Structure formats: structure tokens, C-alpha cells
């Protein structure tokens, strides 16, 4: 109907088929009060979680509420530097924003004392030797490079303890 003779005739460039519309927007971001406490803990080389006053579960990080009760989590709980790999995958695919050489292990780590796992990088072990239940410890960046960010945790590595029993973490899969 439209892209015919008269419009294309004017030049040999051919019809316009795409339009570049770059979009750049700037924001001031805050993660909120509760998550900031977690992040400030990372800056000190510590994992700080928060306990729900109703169900007693410990969230790390807490976004400020207990996701099941909908009430504020207020009691800070310092967690261990060690935990258990509940499940994992091996990342073999390059993608934009990736900063680690593939293949590498991406695991759900359940810190001792927490009731929720979070995703962490596992190193110092070949990718084919990772196991569900493996005990791991956090390796932090040098003290002078600690920041309020998960980048302060370089990675987790096996700490040599015997694997956790499947029954002990199967509720967290």
C-alpha cells in the first residue's frame, strides 16, 4: 500500500525500514532501610539478616518485610560465614554484563542460621565436582576493598566439612 513507487523514487537509498530511538534515563536509587543494613554489613565483611517477629524466620537479605506475614522484619541477626549448597547450575553461556570466565558454578547457598538461600558463585573447585549439600565458606575481598555490595563477597569455596545431609536442606530447594 504505502511503500511503493513515489516514495522510493527520490533516491537510491531504498525505503527507511528501521528507526533508532536511543533511550537514556537517570535515576536516584535507594534499596531501602532494611536492605541497606544488609549492605552495610557486607561493607564490614559480615552477613546481616533480619528475623520476622511473627514466624521467626531469618531472611538474608531482608527487603524490610517478611514475605509470608507482610510485617516488618526488625531484629538484626548476624549469620555465619559458612553455609550449604542446596542446588546449583553450571553456567556455560556468555551473556551481556557477565564478568566471570565460563564455565562456572552458580549455586543457591543457605547460610547457617538463615532460612533462605541466595545465589552465589562457587570457585576453587572444578565445575564437575560440585554437589548438592556441599559445605562452603565465603571468601571476601581485601578489607580495604569492602563496599556495601555483594561484590564484597568474591565467591564461596568448599570449606572441607563433610556434605550436609539431604534431609537437612531439602526444605530449602
Amino acid at each position, binding site marked *: 500500500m504505502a511503500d511503493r513507487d513515489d516514495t522510493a523514487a527520490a533516491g537510491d537509498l531504498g525505503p527507511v525500514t528501521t528507526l533508532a530511538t536511543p533511550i537514556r534515563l537517570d535515576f536516584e536509587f535507594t534499596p531501602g532501610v532494611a536492605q541497606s543494613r544488609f549492605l552495610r554489613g557486607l561493607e564490614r565483611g559480615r552477613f546481616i539478616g533480619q528475623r520476622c517477629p511473627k514466624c521467626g524466620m531469618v531472611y538474608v537479605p531482608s527487603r524490610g518485610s517478611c514475605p509470608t506475614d507482610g510485617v516488618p522484619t526488625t531484629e538484626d541477626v548476624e549469620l555465619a560465614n559458612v553455609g550449604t549448597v542446596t542446588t546449583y*547450575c553450571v553456567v556455560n553461556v556468555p551473556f551481556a554484563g557477565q564478568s566471570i570466565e565460563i564455565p562456572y558454578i*552458580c549455586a543457591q547457598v543457605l547460610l547457617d542460621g538463615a532460612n533462605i538461600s541466595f545465589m552465589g558463585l562457587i570457585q576453587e573447585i572444578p565445575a564437575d565436582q560440585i554437589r548438592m549439600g556441599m559445605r562452603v565458606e565465603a571468601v571476601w575481598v581485601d578489607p580495604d576493598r569492602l563496599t556495601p555490595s555483594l561484590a564484597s563477597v568474591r565467591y564461596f569455596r568448599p570449606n572441607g566439612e563433610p556434605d550436609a545431609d539431604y534431609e537437612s536442606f531439602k526444605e530449602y*530447594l
Partner: protein
Amino acid sequence: MAERCAVIGVGQTHHKAKRDDVSIAGLVREAAKMALADADLTWTDIDAVVIGKAPDMFEGNMMPELYLAPALGAVGKPMFRVHTAGSVGGSTALVAAHLISSGIHKRVLTVAYEKQSDSDAMWALSVPQPFAAPLLAGAGGYFAPHIRAYMRRSGAPEYIGRMVAVKDRRNAMRNPYAHLHIADIDMKMVEESMMLWDPLRYLEACPSSDGAAAMVLSSEDALSGQYPPAWIHGMAMRSEPTMFAGRDQVNPRAGRDCSADVYAQAGITDPRRQIDVAEVYVPFSWYEPMWLENLGFCDLGDGWKLTESGATAFDGDIPWNTSGGVLSSNPIGASGMLRFLEVAMQVRGQAGEHQIGGARVALGQAYGGGSQFFSMWVVGSDKP
């Protein structure tokens, strides 16, 4: 009491990696006009329009119902926009259906779409935020650990995922609208495809597609169209939090509760026996056996056995995703609606080469977020 509601028109685009021949409006109109034609209606016959899509950042077009209102003949009418993450195509259809079952409208057009190629799906799904964890895994990396957990729990052999990948791609060969048409797909090809997120291989993951889906829904006194109506026998949505202590991400309770609700409405007590065909949101191969269990088609831990037995294959007793499913076409915002639309096509007998003969009751399911948002409907050829 709720009014009866039926699907009387369906339309979808040819889904492709890049639909570089159309604008966003052109894409949605392709599906919408096809649905109107199927229902023998024009824009003026429609009372209200409900659209859905995944994040606006895919196209960089905020609240697109505003720009798309005239393109979908919505001027002067109610126009509504739904966004519930990956389940959005399903929930959009449900919001549209409630506009009928509540008695408010007679005919509603519902459309879902994604034009992912305007940007990059991987970018739009994981826009890096300050203070967030470094980007570790990408989209499939979120789900791969849960797949491993399923394998551990059920003892499923590793080739099950490959069977699903082959089955759905072979089904796609019967569907002219599917994005992926891999004629020579077999177990070996899947096994030799690149390992992306171990245990997930390239050919076990969904593509990224441009595409749109549309349906015309009608009340009982406003039926039209060339094919018999697909009556809605049950519909439900359920959500649970993204992360909480003791959350079962392999077999989420929100999915179980949602199916229990929809089955109760539809009078289904034995899904495997009573449901003739299902379209279920399976973006990664292993989600077929996982959802077989979650949706109650078998006992816990037995989903993979059903897949292995061929029960879910085109000639099985409960064919799943005869259209090729999300594994063969994945315009994210529309993927859920395509599930709902495909089962309507089945019970209307208009699915062409991927039609299951005699299909009378069918289940459509969509899920989204971290397996936390579910929407489902059961449609049938009989009036409920």
C-alpha cells in the same frame, strides 16, 4: 452468579526472532484482525479491549495501551492493561473473561504481545540495579538449579529433558505460526547442542520471539463466528511471594492451589482422564515433568515417567503442547495467551495439523516470575 463466557475468535502472528516487517501496532493488529475475522466481527462490535505484555522496557514504550488504543479500535471504549510477569498473557485473557462473566460487557477483544527485537530480552529482563548482586546467571540460570532439584527429588534420568525438547519441536512442525521449525530435530541433536546452564542445553531452552496473540471473548447471547465457541469451564489466578523460607520452587503451592480451583470449577477430579489436551507454559524442557506433577496429572515424582511413556506426545493419551509450546515460540508477553488460545482452538476443532481429534476439554496454563504467578483456564466444547 457469573455469566457464561466463550472464546469466539482467535488470531496470532507468525512468530519470529525479528518481525522487521511491522511496527508494534502492525504486529498487534495482525493478530487482532485475524481474531475479529474468525469471529465474523469488526472493531465496532467490540465493547472493550484488554491488553497484556511483559515489562515495558522491552520496547521502551511506557504504558503502551495509550499508544495502541486507536490501533486496536479502542477509541471511546474501556481499554485495560495487565502485567503479571510471564503469566501475563494468561492473566490478560482472564481479566477479559471476567469482563464478560461479570455481565459488564458482551464482547471483549484481548491482545498480548512482545516485540522483543526492539531491544534485547536478556537485557530487559535483568536491568542491573545499584547494590544488586553481580549478574551471575542470566534467565535460564535462575531456573536451572530448580531443575536440578527436581532431578534429585524424582530420580529422573537426564534424557527426559531432551525428550520434551524433541517432542515439542516436532509438534511445532505441525504449526505454521511457530517460530522454530527444526525439521530434523532428534535426541542426538539436542544432546549435541551447547550446554548453557548445566543441566540445560541450548535446544532445551525457549527462543526469544516477536509475536502477538488475540482472542475475542463473548457472552452467551452474543456468539458469532465460523467455529463453535470454546466455553470457559473454569478460570483462576494464584500468586505467592518470590522468596520465602521453605518455599518449594519445584512444585509451588500457588500452582497446585490454582489448578485445584480451576478443576473444581470445571468439575475435573481426574485431570489425566478428563482433560483431552493441554497447553502448558514450558520454557525449559524439564518444566513439563515438573508441571505434570504440579497440575495433578500424576503423583509426585512420577511426572518424568509420564513424559518417558509418551503419554504427553502428540499421539499420547494426554498430549501436551501440540502447538510446539513456549519451547518453539516465545514472544514473552504473548506466550501465556498463546497457551490459552491454543486450547480454545483445540476444543473448537480449528487447530489444523496439530488438532487432537475429538478434543472436548482442554487446559491452558501460564506461569511467571520465579514460578510464583499462575493463571489457568479450562475450556470445553460443551456449554457448562
